[in-house]
C-alpha cells in the first residue's frame, strides 16, 4: 500500500475582490465581494515508502498549498488525503508525530537561544526516548558539523548553519516522512552540497520518505528519484528527471575551436548561434544529425584544435515548460 495517497484534491480560497480607488475601497468594505480561487485543482498521486519526490512548479502553482494540506496545516476543500492511513487534518496530532517539516524561509529554532535548547524542547514535544535522542544528536552533529555551533544563539548563526540545525531539528524524532519547503534557498554551493548529501544519506539509512518543494533543479536531480510538476493547480508531469531529459533534451550545442580563422559553413540541420575569434557555437538536434558527421564536415575544411558538446540542462527545459515553449506530449510516460 502506498504511504501517501492523494485523490482528486481540491483547495479553494475565497479572495476579497478589491476595487480601485477610494470609492471602490469603501464599496468593498460595505459590500464585500468574493472570488473563488482554485489553488489546487483535483490533483491525484501516490507516494511509496522510501520515495524521494520533488514538487516543482512556478510561483503560485499550488505546490505549497498541496504540501500544507499534506502536513495538516490546511483543510482540503474536497478530495481525500491519507498519510500512512491517517487524514492529516482530522488526525493532525497523530499525523504530526510521524512527519517532520522544514520550512526553508522560517526557522523553528528559538531565535535568541542556543540551538541545543530547541533540540531539548523538541525531545519533550515528541517524547523522544533518551537513547534515540542521544544517538540521533551524535549522528547529526557529526554529519552536519553541528558541534561547532550547537551552543551559539540562533541569531548569530549563518544561513547555512541555521538550515543545518533546522534539518536536524526536524529529524530528531525519526519521522517517517520529511517535508522540505525550499531547503537550500539562499545557500552557497558548499552548504547546498552538504545538505543534499545528508538528505540522501538519511533517506538511504533510515528509509525516510521525502518530499521537496524547490526551485533549484539541482536539488531535484541530486536527491529525488521522482518529480511532480504542478502548474495552475493541476499536475502536468509525474515521472523521473531522466524521462523529461530524454524526451525534451535532444538539442545539443557544439562549441568548436579551430586552428585558424574559419568562415561560417552551412551544414543542413545545424544552426550557427555565435562565432567569435576562432570559435563557433553550433546547435543541432541529436536525432537529426550525428555529432561525428558535423565534425567530419568541419575537419574537411579546417583543422580543429578543441571541441565540446553540451547537453541542455534540466533547468532550461523546465523553464521552457513554464513559459509554454514545450508542450508536454501525452506519449511521454508520466505526463498527465
Amino acid at each position, binding site marked *: 500500500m502506498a504511504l501517501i495517497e492523494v485523490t482528486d484534491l481540491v483547495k479553494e480560497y475565497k479572495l476579497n475582490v478589491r476595487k480601485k480607488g477610494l470609492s471602490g475601497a469603501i464599496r468593498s468594505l460595505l459590500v464585500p465581494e468574493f472570488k473563488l480561487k482554485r489553488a489546487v485543482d483535483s490533483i491525484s498521486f501516490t507516494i511509496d515508502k522510501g520515495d524521494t519526490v520533488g514538487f516543482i512548479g512556478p510561483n*503560485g502553482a499550488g505546490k505549497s498549498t498541496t504540501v500544507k494540506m499534506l502536513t495538516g496545516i490546511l483543510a482540503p476543500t474536497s478530495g481525500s488525503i491519507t498519510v500512512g492511513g491517517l487524514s492529516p487534518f482530522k488526525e493532525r496530532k497523530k499525523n504530526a508525530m510521524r512527519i517532520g517539516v522544514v520550512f526553508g524561509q522560517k526557522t523553528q529554532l*528559538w531565535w535568541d*537561544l542556543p540551538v541545543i535548547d530547541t533540540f531539548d524542547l523538541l525531545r519533550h514535544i515528541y517524547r523522544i526516548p533518551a537513547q534515540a535522542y542521544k544517538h540521533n544528536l551524535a549522528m547529526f552533529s557529526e554529519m552536519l558539523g553541528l558541534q561547532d555551533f550547537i551552543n551559539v544563539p540562533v541569531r548569530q548563526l549563518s544561513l547555512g548553519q541555521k538550515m543545518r540545525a533546522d534539518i536536524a531539528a526536524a529529524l530528531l524524532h525519526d519521522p517517517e516522512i520529511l517535508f522540505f519547503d525550499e531547503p537550500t534557498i539562499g545557500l552557497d554551493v558548499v552548504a547546498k552540497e552538504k545538505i543534499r548529501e545528508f538528505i540522501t544519506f538519511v533517506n538511504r539509512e533510515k528509509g525516510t520518505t521525502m518530499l521537496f518543494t524547490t526551485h533549484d533543479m539541482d536539488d531535484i536531480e541530486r536527491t529525488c528519484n521522482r518529480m511532480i510538476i504542478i502548474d495552475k493547480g493541476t499536475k502536468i508531469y509525474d515521472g523521473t528527471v531522466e524521462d523529461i531529459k530524454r524526451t525534451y533534451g535532444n538539442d545539443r550545442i557544439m562549441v568548436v575551436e579551430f586552428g585558424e580563422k574559419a568562415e561560417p559553413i552551412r551544414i543542413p540541420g545545424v544552426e550557427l548561434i555565435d562565432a567569435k575569434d576562432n570559435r563557433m557555437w553550433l546547435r543541432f538536434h541529436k536525432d537529426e544529425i550525428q555529432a561525428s558527421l558535423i565534425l567530419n564536415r568541419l575537419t574537411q575544411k579546417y583543422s580543429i584544435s578543441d571541441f565540446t558538446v553540451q547537453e541542455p540542462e534540466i533547468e532550461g527545459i523546465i523553464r521552457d515548460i513554464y513559459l509554454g515553449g514545450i508542450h508536454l506530449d501525452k506519449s511521454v510516460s508520466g505526463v498527465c
Partner: protein
Amino acid sequence: MGKHSMRSLFVLFFKYSNMNLKLALEYKLNRSLIALAIFCREMIGVVVMFLILLRFLHIRGWEIHEMLFLYSFLFLSYSLFVLLFAGIRDFDNMVHSGDFDRLLTRPLGLMYQIISARIDFTATIGHGVVGIVLFMNTAFSVGIEWNWQNSLYYVLALIGGTIIQASLFLLSACFSFWAVKTENLRNLIFFNARRIAGYPLSFYPVFIQKLLIFVIPFSFVNYFPAQYFLRKDGSFWEGYLYLTPVVGALLFYLVFLLWKLGVRSYTSTGNSVY
C-alpha cells in the same frame, strides 16, 4: 515516542516556561526597562486618577481607597493574564507571521501550545507591581476581614477575571482567521471596556451597565468582586457577586468553540496564499 499524558504535558509546560525565562534573561537590561516603562505608564494613570479623586471626599458613596481597591483587580488579573495567556494576546501576530503553521505541524493541542509557548514575564511584572502597590495600600483600609473564606473568594475571583480577559482576547483573536490583523478590533472590545471598568458600574447609564454585564462582561473582572467586599450599591442582583468564575469558564468555553471553527477555515497567509 508516544502519546502525551497529563504528566508529560505538565513537564513540557515547565520546559516552555524555562525557555521563556531564559529568553527574558538573555536581554536583562532591555526587559527590565520595558517592565519599568509599563509600570510608569500604568502608574501615571493611577496617580492622575488619585489626584482628581483627592478633590472629592467621595463620589456616590465610593471613597478614594475603595475606588483604588476596585482598580487593583484590573491590574492583578491583567498581570496574571499576561503570565498565563500571553500567547492568546499575541495570537494575531502568530497568524500574520506564519508561526501558526508551525504549531499545526506539532503533535500537541493548539490551545496548549499557544498558552505554553509564550509567557510575557516583563508585562507580568510591570502590571503586577502596579496591582500589588494598589492592593497593599487599600486592601487593609477598606474594612475587609481577611479570613479564609474571603481569601478564597478573592483568589477565585482573580482567576475568573483572568479567564474572562483571556476569553475577550481570544474572541478578537478568532477574527484573525478571517481578517488577519485584528489589533483595532481588540482595542475596541478590550481596552475600551477596561477603561470603563476603572470606575464603579453604578456610575454609568443602564445601557452601559447592561453592556458590561451581558455583552463584554468586564464588570465581573473587578466591579462585582469589589462589590462583594465593599457592599456599596444595592441596585444589582446579589447573585452577580458570586458569578465571576462561572462567567469566566462559560465565556471561555463559548469563545473556544468559535475558535475551533476558525481553525477549520484557516488559510495560512504565512508566505503566500498559494
